[in-house]
C-alpha cells in the first residue's frame, strides 16, 4: 500500500522529535502487536474488514473540507496511513512512521465522530484513531504539550497543575465574589449528603475563576443543595483519555466518581465541558467496569435546561442582538443534548441564530479531542483546518458565539481571532448571569 502524499509545513515538537530518535523497531513491533492482540478485538477487525474505501466519510470531515479537499486529511486516509499499515506489516514499522501516526491521530483528528455518521456502514473511524493514539502513547510518541497535561493529571489529578491549597483558596475567593451579587450566596465545601456535587475542569480555577463565582450565584438563586470537594477529585477533565494513557484516565475518573460517592451526593453536575462529559459518562466508567457512572452525571446544558424549564431560574432580560452557538460534539452528536441547547439559547437570547448545519450535524470547533492541548506548535494547522466552521459562524452575523464546552471556547476564540470575525465568545453561564432574574430578597441591600 503506497503512503499518501501529505504536504505539511514542518512542525517542531520537542517530545515527538526526541522520541523518534530513541524508539527502536523492536519496541514498536512489540507494542503494536500487544495493543492489537490484547486491547482490541472483533470491533477493530470488523471496522477494518467492512470498510470499502469509498471515501464518503471525507465529505463529513472539517479537516478535508477546510483544506481544499486535500485527500491526505480525509478520514479514510487517516485510517489507511496508520492502523491499516500497522496491521498489514504486523507491527514492523519504523519510528518515523509512528511519529506520522501521532501527527495524524493526535493533531489532525478531533475524534469528533462526524465521519462515522456519514459512513454507509456506520464505521466508528474515531475509535480507530483512538487505537492509534493508544499505540503512540505506549511508545511515548505524544505531542509535548498534550503529554505535559497528562503528566499533570497523573501527578495532581487535575489538568493544570493546580495545587490543593490553590484550589480551595480559589473557591473561597469566588464565594466572596458571588456575595457581591447575592450576599447570602455560599460555595459549600465538603458538605456530605448534599444533592449535587458540582465539578469543573482545571482551567476554571486556573484562568476562569469567575465561572466558579457565577455558578455560586446560580445555585443560590435556584435554591439548590450543592457542594464542591476540597480534595483532589474535583477536576472532571481527562486529557489522558485522548492521549491514549488509559490507566491515568481511569485513575482520574475513579477519583472523580469516588469523591461523589464519599460526599454521598445524588448526582454530579458538571460545568460546561464536552470531553469531560465523555470521560465521566462513558470512557472512564467503561474502563473501570461500570455500565454507567454509579453517581449520575448531568452536563451543564441539561442542568440549565432543567432550571429554566422548571422555572427555578427565571429570565428577566434576554440578551439583545444575534447570538449563535457552537455545538460541542461530545454532548450533542454523542449524547443528544442538541434540542436542550437550542431551548436554553432561545430562552436567554432575543435572537438566537442557529448554525447550518446544526445539532448532531454541526462541525467540530477543531479544538476538541485533545488537538488544542497539542499546543502552540500545532496551532497554525488547527486554525487553518477550522475554515469551514469560521464561514458558518460568519454567516450568522452574530455578535457572540456561545460555547458550552471549554475546548470549544478556546478553539472558537482562535477561530474568531484567526479569521477576524469580530465576535465575542462566551460560556452559556455568562449569558445566564446577565439574563436571569435575581429575586428581591436575594439582592444586596441598599446602603
Amino acid at each position, binding site marked *: 500500500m503506497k503512503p499518501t502524499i501529505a504536504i505539511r509545513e514542518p512542525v517542531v515538537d520537542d*517530545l515527538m522529535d526526541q522520541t523518534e530518535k530513541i524508539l527502536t523497531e523492536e519496541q514498536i513491533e512489540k507494542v503494536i502487536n500487544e495493543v492489537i492482540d*490484547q*486491547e482490541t478485538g472483533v470491533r477493530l477487525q470488523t471496522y477494518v474488514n467492512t470498510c470499502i474505501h469509498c471515501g464518503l466519510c471525507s465529505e463529513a470531515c472539517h479537516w478535508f473540507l477546510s483544506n481544499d479537499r486535500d485527500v491526505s486529511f480525509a478520514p479514510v486516509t487517516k485510517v489507511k496511513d496508520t492502523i491499516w499499515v500497522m496491521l498489514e506489516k504486523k507491527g514492523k514499522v519504523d519510528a518515523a512512521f509512528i511519529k506520522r501516526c501521532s501527527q495524524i491521530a493526535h493533531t489532525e483528528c478531533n475524534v469528533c465522530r462526524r465521519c462515522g455518521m456519514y459512513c454507509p456502514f456506520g464505521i466508528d473511524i474515531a475509535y480507530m484513531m483512538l487505537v492509534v493514539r493508544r499505540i503512540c*502513547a*505506549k511508545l*511515548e510518541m505524544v505531542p*509535548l*504539550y498534550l*503529554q*505535559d497535561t497528562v*503528566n499533570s493529571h*497523573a*501527578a*495532581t489529578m487535575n489538568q493544570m*497543575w493546580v*495545587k*490543593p*491549597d490553590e484550589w*480551595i*483558596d480559589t473557591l*473561597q475567593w469566588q464565594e466572596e465574589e458571588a456575595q457581591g451579587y447575592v450576599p*447570602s450566596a*455560599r460555595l*459549600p*465545601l*465538603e*458538605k*456530605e*449528603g448534599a444533592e449535587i456535587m458540582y465539578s469543573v475542569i482545571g482551567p476554571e480555577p486556573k484562568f476562569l475563576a469567575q465561572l466558579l463565582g457565577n455558578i455560586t450565584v446560580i445555585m443560590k438563586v435556584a435554591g439548590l443543595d450543592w457542594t464542591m470537594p*476540597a*480534595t*483532589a477529585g474535583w477536576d472532571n477533565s481527562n486529557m489522558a483519555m485522548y492521549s491514549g*494513557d488509559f*490507566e*491515568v484516565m*481511569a*485513575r482520574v475518573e475513579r477519583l472523580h466518581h469516588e469523591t461523589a*460517592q464519599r460526599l*454521598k451526593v*445524588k448526582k454530579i453536575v458538571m460545568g460546561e465541558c464536552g470531553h469531560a462529559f465523555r470521560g465521566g459518562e462513558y470512557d472512564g466508567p467503561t474502563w*473501570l*467496569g*461500570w*455500565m*454507567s457512572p*454509579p453517581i449520575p452525571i448531568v452536563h451543564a446544558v441539561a442542568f440549565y435546561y432543567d432550571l429554566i424549564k422548571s422555572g427555578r431560574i427565571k429570565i428577566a432580560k434576554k440578551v439583545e442582538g444575534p447570538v449563535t452557538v457552537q455545538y460541542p460534539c461530545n454532548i450533542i452528536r454523542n449524547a443528544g443534548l442538541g434540542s436542550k441547547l437550542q431551548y436554553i439559547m432561545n430562552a436567554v437570547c432575543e435572537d438566537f441564530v442557529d448554525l447550518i448545519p446544526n445539532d448532531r450535524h454541526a462541525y467540530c470547533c477543531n479544538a476538541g479531542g485533545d488537538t488544542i492541548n497539542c499546543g502552540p506548535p500545532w496551532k497554525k494547522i488547527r486554525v487553518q483546518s477550522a475554515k469551514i466552521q469560521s464561514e458558518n459562524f460568519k454567516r450568522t452575523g452574530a455578535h457572540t458565539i456561545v460555547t458550552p464546552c471549554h475546548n470549544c471556547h478556546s478553539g472558537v476564540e482562535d477561530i474568531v481571532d484567526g479569521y477576524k470575525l469580530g465576535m465575542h465568545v462566551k460560556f452559556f453561564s455568562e449569558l445566564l448571569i446577565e439574563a436571569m432574574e435575581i429575586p428581591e430578597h436575594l439582592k444586596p441591600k441598599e446602603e
Partner: protein
Amino acid sequence: MFNIENWDWESKEKMLAEPAKWKDQFEDVWEPYISPDGEKIASIVKIGEGEFNIAINEGTWEEPFEKIWYSRFSPDGRLTAFITKDMEWTMAVDGKTWEQMYEYIWDTKFSADGKIIAATTKVDSVYSITINEKTWECPTKLQSIASHVISPDGKTSVAIAQTVPLAEGDVNAFTKGAWSVIVNGKPWNDNYADIYGLAISDDGKNVVAEYRNSICEYGILVNEKPWNEKFGCTWEPVFHPKNSDEITAPVRQAGQWFLATNGRIVWDKGFINLMHQTYSPDGNNIAAAVAPSFAKWTIAVNGQPWSKTFNECILKPYFSPDGRKVAAIAKDSGKWLLVVDGTVLGEGYDNIWPPVFGPNGDMVICKVEKNGKYAIAVNGKIRGNDYEALWNPVVSPDGTKVMICGVEDGKYYRKVVLLSDI
C-alpha cells in the same frame, strides 16, 4: 473509637441543643457536625460581614474570626477548624488558635486518641506538615503536598510531596521523577514520576505506596524498596492488620485485575476490576469489591465472588467483628442496597451509609435516606422515626446498646437504645 467505654451509655435520651434556633440567631448556619461521643453538636455560623463563629450546643466560641471552615471534632471531642485573622490562616482548637499563622492550612488528620492534630501547611510558598503546632524540619523545599497520613499513635506522619520544581512542559524532568514520600520530614532517597495510595501500618513501622514509572509500569514501594514485580496498573495497597510485613494490593496484568500479596498473585481468578480489598479484624480473611464481568459487581471473599451481582457498583466491604460475615453497600438499578454475605437485606434506599455490625454479626445497622429523610435501618428495614439529620450509629463496647444521634423537629438528641429494643 477513643475512650468509648467511658462514654455515657446510661442516659437513654438527652436533648443537647436546638440547632433550629441558630437560624434565628445568626445570619447563616452551615451544616452541623457532632463529637464522636455525641455530646456536642456544632455549626459554623455567620454573624456579620466577614465575621464567623462556631455555635456549639448552647454557646459559641468566645472569639469570632474573619473566616472559618472545615470544622471537625477530634476523636477526644475537641473541635478544630481553620480560621483567618488579618488574611492569614491557622488552626483553632476549641476556639484557641495556634500561635503560628500560615499562608494556607488544610487537610486535618488526627491520631486515634485525638492527642495529635496534624494538617498540611504553607509558609512563603513552601509546603510542610504541621503536627500539634510543630512544623516538619524538612531538608528539601517541598513544592507541593498531595496528601498525608498519620499513624494511629500519631508518631509517624508521611506525605506525598513534590520535591523538585518542574518548569512548564519539562516532561523529561517529570519522567525522571519529581515526587517522593516524606516520612516525618525526611524524604525518601529516590524521586518518582507519580506516587499514589500512601499508607502506614498500624504499628507505624512501615510505609507503603504505589508508584508509576511510565504509562503501563506500576509497582509497590515498601519503605522505599520496590516489589520485584511490575504491573500494568495498581490500586491502593493495604497492610495486614496483625502483620505489618504483609501488604496486599490490586494489580493489573494482561487486562485483568488480580490480588497480590507482597508481589505474588494470591487470587488466581482475574476480574474486570478489583478494588477496596479489606482484611478481617484477625487478618485471616480478605474481601474486595470485584467485577467478575462487565457491569456486574459483587464482593469476593478469599477470591470467591458472591453469586449475586449488582449492575451499578459495590462499595468497600465490612467484616463482622468475628470476621465470619461481610456486609457491603451495592447499587442496582438506581437504588442502594445493603448486602450481607451475598444476600440483599430489606429494601432499596436513596442512600445508605457504612454498615455497622452488632457484636455477634447477626444484626447490621445503617443510616439510610429515603425521600429526603434519614432513619436507622436494621438488617435493611427502617426502625423508629425519621430524622432531619442523622449520624452513623455506634455500638457500645459491650455490644448491648447503640448510640443514635440525630436532629428531630429542630432539636438535637443523643439516644442510647438497647440493641434488643431497636
